């Protein structure tokens, strides 16, 4: 029996990009595999749920779970892995904040089903189906997308959409060496992206934005601060450690690394920081300038709606049937 720490990778409501981050370790994956025993990794290895159920409680050193929680199956797996693991690590923006799938909180189960399956011949999918005495089950889709921490206790968080391989490497190294920070920490520096931005020097002392520009509307200069060019760059509100990769690609920050530790609601804070820089002073002019931000929720809460203070769009009064 190996004495190496056991590690599990699991995915819930996610796109697969976080798995890609693990694969992006490239030959580094061999070092990880040498240092730990991978006991569950559905995207790459053939383990089943029963294998996890058969393990003793607490026998997995750490589970890296990516993706948000939006079905009963995902919630069950989160609870199961929590029970089997000493450490539960929320891996990536979806597990941490709800991520892109979290934007489904602008909808609810009924309106989604109506939009996707409404008027169809077969109706919407059911969770159970009987056929010749056999019973088939599908997971139940929730009204509200949740973060991992809203479902089970989370010990650490690795931010990003996706996290960088370097962050994962550091997390695994800290785990193997037993040098983890106090519980609850986000395993990344606690400062804003502007701090490590290669264009920091070109940020003017005082910013004044007439209207926000979207990347396709202007020719973007390769060296000047993106905010100074009027682009909606969320770097000022976003945690550093991505290596400013979007900025290097001449695109503004969209906030995937989430807030620093002093901020409760990422979208509100990002909105506050950026819109207060606008030039306009009068009601009419402000409203006119704000037309350049056609979808504030999609802009400021792109990765963090479920983790926000309001968490979801207000639901209709009529209750939904399961």
């Amino acid at each position, binding site marked *: 029996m190996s004495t190496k720490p056991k590690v599990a990778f699991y995915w819930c409501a996610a796109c697969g990009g976080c798995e890609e981050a693990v694969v992006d370790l490239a030959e580094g994956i061999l070092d990880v595999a040498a240092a730990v025993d991978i006991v569950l990794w559905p995207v790459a290895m053939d383990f089943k749920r029963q294998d996890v159920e058969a393990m003793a409680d607490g026998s997995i050193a750490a589970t890296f779970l990516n993706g948000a929680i939006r079905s009963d199956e995902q919630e069950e797996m989160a609870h199961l892995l929590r029970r089997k693991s000493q450490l539960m690590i929320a891996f990536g923006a979806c597990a941490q904040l709800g991520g892109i799938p979290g934007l489904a909180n602008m909808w609810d189960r009924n309106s989604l089903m109506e939009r996707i399956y409404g008027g169809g011949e077969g109706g919407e999918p059911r969770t159970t189906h009987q056929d010749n005495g056999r019973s088939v089950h599908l997971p139940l889709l929730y009204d509200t997308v949740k973060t991992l921490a809203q479902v089970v206790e989370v010990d650490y968080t690795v931010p990003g959409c996706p996290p960088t391989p370097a962050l994962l490497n550091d997390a695994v190294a800290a785990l193997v060496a037993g040098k983890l920070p106090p519980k609850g920490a986000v395993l990344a520096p606690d400062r804003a992206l502007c701090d490590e931005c290669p264009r920091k020097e070109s940020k003017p002392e005082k910013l004044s934005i007439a209207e926000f520009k979207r990347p396709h509307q202007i020719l973007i200069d390769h060296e000047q601060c993106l905010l100074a060019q009027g682009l909606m760059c969320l770097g000022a509100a976003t945690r550093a450690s991505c290596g400013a990769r979007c900025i290097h690609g001449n695109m503004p920050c969209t906030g995937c690394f989430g807030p620093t530790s002093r901020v409760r609601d990422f979208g509100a804070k990002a909105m*506050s920081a950026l819109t207060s820089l606008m030039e306009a002073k009068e009601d009419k002019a402000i409203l006119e300038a704000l037309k350049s931000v056609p979808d504030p929720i999609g802009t400021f809460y792109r990765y963090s709606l479920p983790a926000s203070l309001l968490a979801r769009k207000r639901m209709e009064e009529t209750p939904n049937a399961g």
Partner: protein
Amino acid sequence: MSEFEPKIVAFFCNWCTYLAADLAGTSRMKYAPNTRVIRVMCSGRVDPQFILEAFARGADGVLIGGCHPNDCHYQEGNYKALRRFYALKEIVRQMGIEDERLRLEWISAAEGERVKIVVNDMVGKIRALGPLRPKPQQEVTA
């Protein structure tokens, strides 16, 4: 619905609107008792997180009171408040919360009467709307 008493959180700036509310009080003006006033140094200090947290924790409406344009004690604070207010208003609208539940008013220290009018008007409108969260939501969840 007749028993519904709206809960309104009011952020009043130290230099204008809070003094106006004080004046309304010392002048023995009567107005609806539904506001919980929180004094802040400037309307520009009202972090949008405060407003969203008020809604998340059960407020039926949020009122922000600051100095008139050009009158800000800190010169620019009320302009920043106004820009954030309009941006937040759109966010709140997208989240399905009615317009009347979030309001910003410029009320100078001399305008005690205006506090009375604004608070009464807002309470009336929110009373007509009903509670922000009418009953425990029945969600499809585990």
